[in-house]
């Protein structure tokens, strides 16, 4: 038996037994832990609103008309890319709040994260919010990480209303992880494009009092992934590095919930892109899970083919934008009943890369339902 449990050949008798579909765990009552990694939210925390702000390049993509705001330029009148990214996060947060007809005083806690060192975009917008704050780093998986934690806080009674905000900016990420923005460099076809934008969600505790008006989108489960490191080192091919983390998280999710891909109308990965998406399907298929019929990747939906972003979109904003602008309305409108977001993150830095380290990756899965 391969130690990683992710080998592509025969998983061995022990592993095969573990993979066998288990009878569905009852999801009623107050059971909150399904297995070691999956949280169940019996009180069904619900979304009040989502807000999106996208950069001009993202605005020219196929989802352009679905975003709340498309900014005119990439600096937003600020002095630096970092300040601009912070402004994106602020605008998405304000937009979601105003759609929910709330003010920051109505919230109990703010969960926010981004790609910058020391969460540069999140903390500099949080300093003006007068709210308890938890900063999250999960690289591009932050959106799902935030939703999972929001679900736990709301379901556990630690908060009544929570905001989740994530942002990324193409230029602040380029500058931090790669080269100066005006440096003439040719990107390989496996490279993804860090999206400029921010997404915000306001969530409320579920079955409190009236239970709130229907229809609503609720959180039902979250699966917390493990850090998976394949040994791959290419920072221009993060899809390949992240796909195994997604596969690990998904396999755990299906095993611990007793569900299969077909229990979902959609399983949306964050930013595996053109390379990572088929690899994820390959990895899962090798373990008897056929994801292809319900799988879509947010990174492949954010840009048009002729925008020349190579393997697709990425960044904390990618899954936040695509979920909030496209999937959330589809869920709320009844086009879908149940979906799973699996956002992945590559947890490397320029320092770790230059020192020859491989790229550790993470994935978080969050199950959502329309009620």
């Amino acid at each position, binding site marked *: 038996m391969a130690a990683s449990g992710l*080998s592509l050949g025969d998983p061995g008798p022990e592993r095969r037994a573990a993979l066998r579909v288990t009878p569905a765990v009852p999801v009623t009552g107050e059971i909150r832990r399904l297995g070691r990694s999956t949280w169940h939210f019996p009180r069904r925390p619900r979304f009040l609103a989502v807000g999106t702000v996208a950069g001009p390049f993202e605005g020219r993509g196929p989802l352009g008309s679905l975003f709340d705001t498309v900014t005119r330029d990439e600096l937003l009148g600020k002095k630096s890319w970092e300040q601009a990214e912070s402004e994106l996060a602020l605008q998405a947060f304000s937009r979601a709040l105003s759609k929910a007809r709330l003010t920051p005083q109505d919230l109990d806690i703010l969960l926010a994260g981004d790609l910058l060192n020391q969460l540069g975009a999140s903390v500099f917008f949080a300093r003006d919010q007068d709210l308890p704050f938890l900063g999250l780093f999960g690289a591009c998986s932050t959106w799902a990480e935030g939703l999972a934690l929001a679900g736990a806080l709301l379901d556990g009674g630690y908060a009544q209303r929570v905001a989740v905000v994530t942002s990324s900016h193409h230029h602040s990420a380029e500058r931090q992880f790669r080269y100066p923005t005006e440096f003439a460099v040719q990107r390989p076809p496996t490279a993804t494009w860090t999206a400029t934008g921010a997404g915000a969600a306001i969530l409320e505790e579920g079955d409190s009092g009236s239970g709130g008006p229907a229809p609503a989108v609720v959180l039902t489960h979250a699966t917390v992934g493990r850090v998976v490191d394949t040994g791959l080192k290419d920072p221009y091919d993060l899809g390949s590095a992240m796909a195994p983390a997604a596969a690990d998280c998904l396999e755990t999710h299906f095993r611990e919930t007793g569900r299969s891909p077909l229990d979902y109308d959609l399983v949306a990965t964050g930013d595996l892109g053109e390379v990572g998406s088929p690899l994820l399907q390959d990895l899962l298929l090798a373990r008897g899970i056929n994801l292809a019929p319900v799988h879509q990747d947010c990174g492949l939906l954010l840009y048009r083919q002729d925008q020349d972003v190579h393997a697709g979109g990425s960044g904390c904003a990618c899954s936040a934008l695509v979920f909030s602008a496209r999937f959330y309305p589809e869920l709320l409108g009844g086009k879908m009943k149940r979906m799973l977001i699996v956002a992945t993150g590559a947890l490397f830095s320029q320092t770790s890369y230059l020192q020859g380290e491989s790229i550790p990756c993470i994935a978080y899965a969050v199950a959502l339902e329309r009620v």
Partner: protein
Amino acid sequence: MPRWPSSDLKNYQALQKKRIPARPWGRNALWAFLVGGAIALIGEAVRQLLLFLGVGPLLALNLTAAILVFLGGLLTGFGIYDEVGRVGGMGAALPITGFANAIVSPAMEFKREGWVMGVGARMFSIAGPVVVYGLLTSMAVGVVHYVLFYPR
């Protein structure tokens, strides 16, 4: 274990090979030739113009380099040269205009951190290694040249 043993990585890389899009070597090489060639052509046109204006051959050569460095810097400032590089690849990086881009682009990027710790400290963050190892190589070549051709 979440950290893969190398045997798993090997299996995965075999799978990966099938899914990674091929690098468009031919197209890249053609564009590099065209872009690099065009830059060289502009350089030659500038040199011929200077010669025509009566500038001496050695000065014309140095002036041409200076003018191309200026153009590379200017196009970087206008946000055009990174697009040239995206298409042209090495054809845009190798000429002296690419060297100008390698210095001007970090200078622009890090100006926000001030003139000393930003521009001053970071300006050579890309071109620095080229300068360091270029000098080192020329020193080595110089020593070899001295030993071979200047016998006492």
